[in-house]
């Protein structure tokens, strides 16, 4: 019997979503964690990608390069745009046909409701927004189970959840929680076309119009890059430097409450408990000590760079990377090197 570790390969108009690659990496780790059981039982384990869409052959090839050994591809015009019902029915059919042991799906807006529907349709357990996944023993159950760890009650409690005697054990994971595995362009693997008959009843909901959101005004809450200034700037003029770095990174200017208190910048820029909650991809905190009420407003950012003269500043507790130094030196140097890089690659 083959132990199948599945990953849903999410794609958007033929573009593979990076979270799929991250989860293929995780799936291969899980397989390595059951190597001892495989040797003992003589069973085999395989990481397989599940791809649903229309004209998505290149996505299948791409997935093989990130560690999928086999792809089941359902390619049909009905699946060109994501709709919950047809996608759920197709996945349910594949699960019932191949009986995977573990099924990982990216916790994107698409993945979150697709996983909920599939888990219910297949009558199995699902753990959402996991921050850690591993195969491990649980009580007296003979085979290792998927131990899925996730935050609950607004991040105040961390729980490890198991799905016993139901398969597949399903879990969703937010993008960028796990590293992206190395892309191996020479990877080989099998792509199996699976057919699935979509009934009209499944197509009760249709996409009528799609409005891309480039024009979303760069307001703080939805900005992708935020460069924030705090008390460490010393005076209002400091925000000119912050603005320059923000423009260089294509971001917007934020601030801590202390800067707003000092009257250096308008209240609309304030990030924090009594200001705005933000989740940008990149948050650069300059001269911000990082008192708790500021951290609450920005700790969900994906990547946090903090620049502060004080190595003990609390901001370093939540940042991904810290530079200990005077921002009036560090920022101009950073702008210079960014421009140099742009110059080189332009």
């Amino acid at each position, binding site marked *: 019997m083959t132990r199948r570790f599945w990953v849903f390969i999410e794609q958007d108009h033929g573009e593979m979503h990076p979270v799929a690659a991250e989860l293929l990496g995780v799936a291969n780790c899980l397989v390595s964690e059951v190597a001892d059981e495989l040797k003992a039982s003589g069973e085999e384990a395989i990481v397989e990608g599940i791809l649903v869409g229309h004209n998505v052959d290149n996505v299948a090839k791409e997935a093989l390069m990130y560690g999928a050994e086999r792809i089941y591809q359902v390619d049909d015009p009905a699946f060109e745009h994501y709709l919950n019902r047809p996608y759920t029915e197709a996945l349910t059919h594949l699960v019932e046909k191949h009986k995977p042991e573990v099924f990982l799906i990216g916790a994107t807006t698409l993945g979150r409701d697709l996983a909920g529907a599939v888990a219910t349709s297949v009558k199995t357990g699902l753990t959402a927004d996991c921050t850690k996944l591993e195969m491990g023993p649980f009580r007296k159950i003979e085979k290792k189970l998927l131990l899925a760890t996730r935050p609950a009650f607004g991040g105040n409690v961390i729980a490890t959840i198991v799905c016993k005697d139901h398969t597949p054990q399903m879990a969703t994971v937010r993008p960028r929680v796990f590293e992206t595995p190395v892309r191996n362009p020479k990877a080989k693997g099998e792509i199996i076309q699976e057919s699935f008959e979509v009934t009209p009843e499944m197509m009760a909901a249709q996409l009528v119009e799609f409005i891309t959101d480039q024009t979303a005004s760069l307001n703080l809450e939805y900005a992708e890059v935020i460069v924030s200034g705090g008390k460490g700037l010393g005076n*209002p003029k400091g925000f000119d430097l912050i603005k320059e770095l923000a423009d260089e990174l294509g971001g917007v200017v934020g601030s801590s409450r202390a800067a707003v208190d000092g*009257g250096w910048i308008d209240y609309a820029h304030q990030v924090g*408990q009594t200001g705005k909650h933000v989740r940008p991809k990149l948050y650069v905190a300059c001269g911000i000590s990082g*008192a708790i009420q500021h951290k609450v407003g920005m700790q969900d950012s994906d990547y946090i760079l903090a620049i502060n003269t004080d190595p003990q500043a609390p901001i370093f507790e939540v940042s991904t990377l810290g530079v200990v130094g005077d921002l009036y030196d560090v920022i101009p140097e950073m702008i210079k090197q960014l421009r140099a890089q742009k110059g080189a690659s332009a």
Partner: protein
Amino acid sequence: MEKNTQKRKLPQVYIDDMLMSLKYFTDEQELHLAIIDPAVCQTCEDQPCIQFCPVGAYRAQDGRTVQIAVQSCVECGTCRVLCPYLNVSWKNPRGGFGVSYKFG
């Protein structure tokens, strides 16, 4: 008790750490506090609202105008009573909104 010589000074307090402990039902549609005439604040000598609001909801902006973080208010009334120019439009929040003490 350790003996220290000079009189104990006033500690620096970051008011927002206090606010983290409070439960608010924030009224998205109506603000119950407002500055009646911002120009008056610019002439106000010591701006007591900023100094004595127990939750630091009043903040000086550039040019000595005053901004209110209304959602931090605990409806104590100090600003209304201390404002030398009666320049604060002070109302209780709409029913069900504002601070909601968990312990009290």
